[in-house]
């Protein structure tokens, strides 16, 4: 496989995952706005922070408004990570690696792109927002499903999965980081349950409400949420889960190619760190510091994968 193709696959799936995550965050933001009584739009600053989009927003907008935030996250062409920009970038990469994709995957993605172009052509009114986000979620899920159902389990698939899980881990880590103040040890040491709005934000933005309830029941506390989102092996968006998938796909590549590249070693180290940690250790180190170290490790891992598999010249 061409290094360029591996690169294109990796980014296609990163952008696809990003589009989905951003759509979910917008949904969360709207939901919170609807369920609170005061009128300010403060929550949107934090939502945009979770998506690492606040910096760009501030540079182009004077104040934080709900409409401004939604448009920025959903369809702004000036925001490279908006849903529309991400889907366009995913498709651009897909065109680049067209020969590595099945027809089903390509058509699902191209269909997703065409649909997104159509429904995001004009500003989306609040009334239409839920339906629009639903379509985005379904269309991206269709690409994922087609990938799962039609692609050979070979190096092509491995690079697709690496992109997916690196993006996902990054996303989960950032959401935790932005919200870390609500999960500070002081909060749970008193044994108080968290402010509704905050735990809603965290769990909803990771599609984790149902899963959490199944695993821990309806009582919410900071310790359990952190445990669930960082260390839980069953939760498909937890850091541990993502790292384990990344490591597994790197192992497949290594055995296919009969090499033992540095990236496998880094991924293994990351996975082992989750196995040894228990959540108390995380809080002792400081959640923010801990998350930062995970983000750094992910960044390093991504760079090493690019190098090991010759993404660039």
């Amino acid at each position: 496989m061409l290094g360029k193709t591996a690169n294109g696959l990796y980014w296609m799936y990163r952008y696809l995952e990003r589009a989905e995550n951003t759509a979910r965050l917008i949904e969360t933001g709207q939901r919170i706005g609807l369920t609170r009584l005061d009128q300010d739009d403060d929550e949107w600053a934090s939502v945009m922070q979770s998506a690492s989009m606040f910096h760009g927003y501030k540079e182009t907008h004077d104040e934080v408004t709900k409409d401004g935030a939604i448009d920025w996250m959903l369809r702004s062409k000036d925001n490279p990570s908006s849903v529309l920009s991400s889907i366009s970038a995913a498709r651009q990469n897909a065109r680049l690696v067209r020969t590595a994709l099945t027809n089903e995957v390509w058509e699902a993605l191209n269909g997703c792109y065409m649909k997104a172009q159509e429904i995001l052509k004009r500003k989306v009114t609040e009334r239409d927002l839920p339906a629009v986000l639903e379509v985005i979620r379904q269309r991206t899920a269709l690409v994922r499903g087609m990938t799962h159902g039609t692609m050979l389990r070979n190096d092509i698939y491995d690079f697709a999965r690496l992109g997916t899980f690196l993006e996902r881990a990054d996303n989960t880590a950032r959401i935790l980081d932005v919200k870390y103040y609500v999960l500070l040890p002081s909060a749970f040491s008193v044994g108080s349950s968290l402010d509704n709005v905050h735990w809603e934000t965290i769990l909803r933005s990771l599609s984790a409400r149902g899963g959490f309830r199944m695993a821990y029941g309806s009582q919410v506390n900071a310790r359990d949420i952190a445990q669930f989102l960082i260390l839980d092996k069953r939760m498909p968006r937890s850091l541990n889960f993502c790292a384990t998938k990344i490591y597994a796909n790197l192992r497949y590549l290594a055995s296919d190619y009969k090499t033992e590249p540095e990236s496998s070693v880094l991924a293994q180290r990351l996975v082992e760190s989750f196995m040894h940690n228990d959540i108390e250790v995380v809080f002792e180190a400081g959640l923010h510091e801990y998350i930062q170290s995970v983000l750094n490790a992910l960044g390093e891992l991504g760079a090493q994968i690019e190098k090991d598999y010759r993404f660039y010249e």
Partner: protein
Amino acid sequence: MNEEQKIFDEMWGRNDELRDPYKEFQSWFQGEDLKRLRAKQREAEEVFRLTGITFNVYGRSEAEERLIPFDIIPRVIAGREWQKLSKGIEQRVRAINAFLHDIYNRQEIIKAGRLPREMISRNEAFLPQMMGMTPPGGVYTHIVGIDLVRTGDDQFYVLEDNARTPSGVSYMLENRETMLKMFPELFSTNRVQPVQNYPTNLRRSLAACAPNKCEGTPTVAVLTPGIYNSAYYEHSFLADQMGVELVEGHDLRVVDGRVAMRTTEGYKPIDVLYRRVDDDFLDPLSFNPESALGVPGIMDVYRSGGITIANAPGTGIADDKAIYSYMPDIVEFYTGEKAILENVPTWRCSEADSLAYVLDNLAELVVKEVHGSGGYGMLIGPTASKKEIAEFRKKLEAKPGNYIAQPTLSLSTVPIFTKAGLAPRHVDLRPFVLCSPEGINITPGGLTRVALQKGSLVVNSSQGGGTKDTWVLED
């Protein structure tokens, strides 16, 4: 007599008598409902959009991808008509290859006085870098497209040879695929010769031209200028269908005397490169030094037998419009036979007598730039305004050597589907030819381009032309 009545229609002839190849089609069409067909036409468009069969428009924004309009009415050619055509095509392609070998080696045709030396020496399409070089297998034009037009029952002309990087074959294949999906019933009443083997044949044909240094099964790759090229879809389609890598210049470099592609496991040599990049951009060390699309040093590897480039560099000398007028001589010179396919009579404006005639008859002639393509920079006398003719006259007088002129042919029409039912439109045909040491392979049919505007003769997709499926029937 009315001009309209003289035009030959491939379905109805000149006298409104249903021609044989269209009989089955006609009986099917009569039983069809216009509303259903309109829905089918829209459905076809959806299929094309979803599949991403688009072309990028040069000079437009990056995002601009357009569909080439597809018409659902097939163009039907009888098996016996095709047989004669394919013989003529094969003869012409053999002659083109022999001509290229001669021009880049002994230049017998010039010595024999059949072609003026300046046609070569002053021609930009001639590449001195190719002198004395014979490509692997002696094949210069691995892929050729011959543009044909029809004016009567038994009258075909070659409008143009495409010996560099002919495009459009993906449309031939996708058009058929779409028709099979939408109108399966038509294929059970008509025995249509298949085109689907093209990608397999292409790969085999390319592999058969592998260079000396190739070890084992030849590695083939398609070289594209990139995602913003107007034909990018076709490049990725062909690579996909052949099951080979689609590479860009920056994926390649010369490693140990071979051209190699950067893979996830390191550099891997390529044996045959089907390049869809123009000569000029192929190697910044040999040609345009600014080019970022090519591979520095590929020409050295080529000369030392390390890679096959398809088509060979310098084949443009054979399809140049100035050379075109010599094609009947060229065919005769190398095959010893008269050309089976006729050329359109052509005046070379570089010759004083011809120029005088052309200037006197501008309103009746089609005048083309010798090096132009895509239907740009040409004058269609009969449909041009007085002002356009006057302006063109100035250009022609300033640089007569840049132009050739041809009579306006009354191109045949075939029916297309319009809101009101069937309506005749002018067409041309580009059959695709593969050459290798194993022989010449012509896919039955080819790409039919159709001028969708009533009365228009311009079939180019960049100027409002469409395409349709082309059937060659099994007789």
